[in-house]
């Protein structure tokens, strides 16, 4: 809840800047609100941004709990998404209920593997996960591009994207959420994301494994003294983190597009960091934080259309200020607690 203060401070500064740019800040604010929740169509789009942000926020939050900083959610989701598309294209004959499950499982597996690499390197070689995950982001982008453009390209389009997955892999016909929000990419994976968030909450707070993971994050040396295997936690938490980011494959490939499009993600993996911060790494909080950031992302896109001075780049500035507000609040709190600790 405390993070909301940072959010509002950031929003306030951002609106103040629009005022100096010659816009009426209340007007800007009302556009943001209307654009996010104004109609079923707008809400659907907001939800379609929310879903991948829940997955990425969870991914970052879990790694934070273990004392790791997963900056690689972007790479993990990219690998997972291209995997889901590849399975859907290469095995078109798999019958319906199994097909999406197979593709999703494969996506989670590859996402998890992409998280496993930095976790394993950290455990065995002591390489810092931030550096490794950043590098893996580039490798993932390159690999996915190569697969999408050279191995399974969409020959009917000049867009950089894969061919469509077989129809057996799409669950649109059974998708209630997609029916509520027609013409938008919102789909049932929103429900899946919420379910997984609740599941992660249980795992983190109610299980022994979750306790070990948090202990490692709170004080790795003490956790090791208490008989918790550092390497096991490092590797497992990064695998889980990667799998969570891989969940994006469900919402983006299997749920809506039906194909992998190069550049489909507006840096979900990085916005996920802000989501996790905003939620204070609480999995349930991640749902709401993702919704907020999703609404903001959607609203910012519309500012470009609705106003004369606020362009695409300006709306990024607004987003940046809000993230800065949240991060600043977190940092301030950190400073305050560490000062109390000193006393």
């Amino acid at each position: 809840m405390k993070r909301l203060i940072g959010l509002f401070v950031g929003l306030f500064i951002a609106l103040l800047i629009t005022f100096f740019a010659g816009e009426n800040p209340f007007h800007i604010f009302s556009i943001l609100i209307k654009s996010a929740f104004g109609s079923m169509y707008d809400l659907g789009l907001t939800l379609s941004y929310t879903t991948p942000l829940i997955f990425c926020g969870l991914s970052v939050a879990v790694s934070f709990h273990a004392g790791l900083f997963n900056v690689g959610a972007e790479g993990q989701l990219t690998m997972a998404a291209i995997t889901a598309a590849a399975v859907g294209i290469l095995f078109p004959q798999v019958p319906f209920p199994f097909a999406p499950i197979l593709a999703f499982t494969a996506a989670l597996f590859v996402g998890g593997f992409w998280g496993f690499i930095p976790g394993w390197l950290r455990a065995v070689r002591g390489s810092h996960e931030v550096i490794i995950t950043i590098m893996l982001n580039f490798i993932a982008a390159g690999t996915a591009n190569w697969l999408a453009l050279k191995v399974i390209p969409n020959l009917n389009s000049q867009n950089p994207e894969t061919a469509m997955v077989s129809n057996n892999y799409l669950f649109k016909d059974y998708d209630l959420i997609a029916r509520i929000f027609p013409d938008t990419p919102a789909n049932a994976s929103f429900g899946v994301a919420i379910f997984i968030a609740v599941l992660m909450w249980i795992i983190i707070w109610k299980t022994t494994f979750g306790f070990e993971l948090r202990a490692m994050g709170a004080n790795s040396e003490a956790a090791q003294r208490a008989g918790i295997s550092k390497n096991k936690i490092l590797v497992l938490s990064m695998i889980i983190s990667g799998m969570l980011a891989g969940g994006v494959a469900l919402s983006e490939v299997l749920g809506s597009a039906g194909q992998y499009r190069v550049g489909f993600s507006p840096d979900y993996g990085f916005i996920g960091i802000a989501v996790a911060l905003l939620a204070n790494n609480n999995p349930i909080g991640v749902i709401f934080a993702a919704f907020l950031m999703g609404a903001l992302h959607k609203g910012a896109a519309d500012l470009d259309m609705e106003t004369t001075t606020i362009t695409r780049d300006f709306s990024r500035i607004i987003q940046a200020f809000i993230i800065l507000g949240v991060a600043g609040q977190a940092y301030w709190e950190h400073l305050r607690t560490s000062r109390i600790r000193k006393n």
Partner: protein
Amino acid sequence: MNGNPIIEFQGVSISFGDISANSEVSFSVSAGTIHGIIGENGAGKSTAMNILFGLYLADQGKVLIKGKPVRFQSSIDAMNEKIGMVHQHFMLAETLTALDNILLYQKGSAFSILRRDEQKKHLEAIAKRFGFEIDFDAKISELSVGAQQRLEILKILSQDSEILILDEPTAVLTPQEVQDLFCNLQKLKSEGKTILIITHKLKEVMSLTDSVTVFRAGKVITTKVTSESNLAELAELMVGHRLVTPQERSTAADSSQTVLRVSNLNAQMNSSKIHDINFHVHGKEIVGIAGVEGNGQDILVRSLIDKQGLNKKNFSGEVSVSGTMVSFPEDRLRFGCLPSRPVWENFFLGQQGLAKFNWGPFIRKTEILKSTKRAIENYDIRPTNEFLPFEKLSGGNQQKLVVARALSQNPHFILAAQPTRGVDIGAIHFIHNELRAARDHGAGVLLISSELDELMTLSDRILVLYKGRFIAEFHRENFSEITIGAAMGGVEVITKNAEFL
């Protein structure tokens, strides 16, 4: 009280949030004396000194220096009033030379050009006058702890300070170095300086100070002339009740059982090494390891607890523990707890594998809470709130929890590394008694401590670790502060019954 008060506290109060750290603190210090500030951890003595040094601003009350009220906004104001402070943790730049570290401290050094040779000559003169001679061209990392401390004091003296505040200055020194320090402090006193020394070691207070102010729970209990008081009285004033020392042990070591056996142990980690370590611990026995910090204690602890974590290349020898083992970490905040997590989770830490606290993959929180509450009650941990973040507890209560956690598992072997570091007298007493009780129930204890007093009260045998080797062994009947202290300083003592030699 003779002479003019150079420092006067008049009803000074300060609080952090809900916690009142100092309330209505009033006392005065005469010029040209050594004044002890004693109290348990969290009694508010450091807070009061930090106010004096300008690190905190008092909420209420007045501080007078030479009868003139002052209100320091920062330590720079305090330095201008010729007050200097040596912190418990030295504020030195490791990679620079001693001279550079002093020059860094000079007023306006950021913008002015200082003549190094002149400054050096000037400083050497000061050093000579007060007997704080050090090698000004040596790098800090090459200086001994005692020399570093002399440097810290010299930093203050170079500013012509008249009032020196020393925060727990003896915690890191060998007995010999302590003697040297006290000698020098007496010399400073004779030069007319006023010295405030924060400590919880009453013996030092008795031997060094002229007068002493006792803090308890944020308040000043009394100020006494040292020569008119005695150890027992001061201890009682500090703790607030009489301390009961238990009778000497009634049981003998159970030599039929060996709970720990270490043979031919060689290990290395970073810069610390141990060589040819051989010893054992019997049941119902407390074996103490004495030694100045940095002589291989850390690697010894690592070898016993977590030898898998060490590089195989750097480890050879045999360590065998029979039965269950628990350990008190030498640095509880670093190795023993999750500072930001609640008390109950910290109690659970290390016991997370026990069947009684688990139900499949889930934790049984109600069970854990029940056990935590019991431990809080039995060990008198305050405040009695199992949901409070661990770091909000005072040092003594933190350590009590760590001890409670370890001993509630009824272990066969207890590795107690610095079990009472930074803990107040009441808690020290309590923890010592718990260790004795565990011993009497059959456990073997390996006690690693930098407090010679503690080792001598508890141990049946004391081994002295110096530069990674055991250089002496003492049995209880031969315990003597002088010989053990000498051994800690590297003087080899040939003892008749040194079984390991």
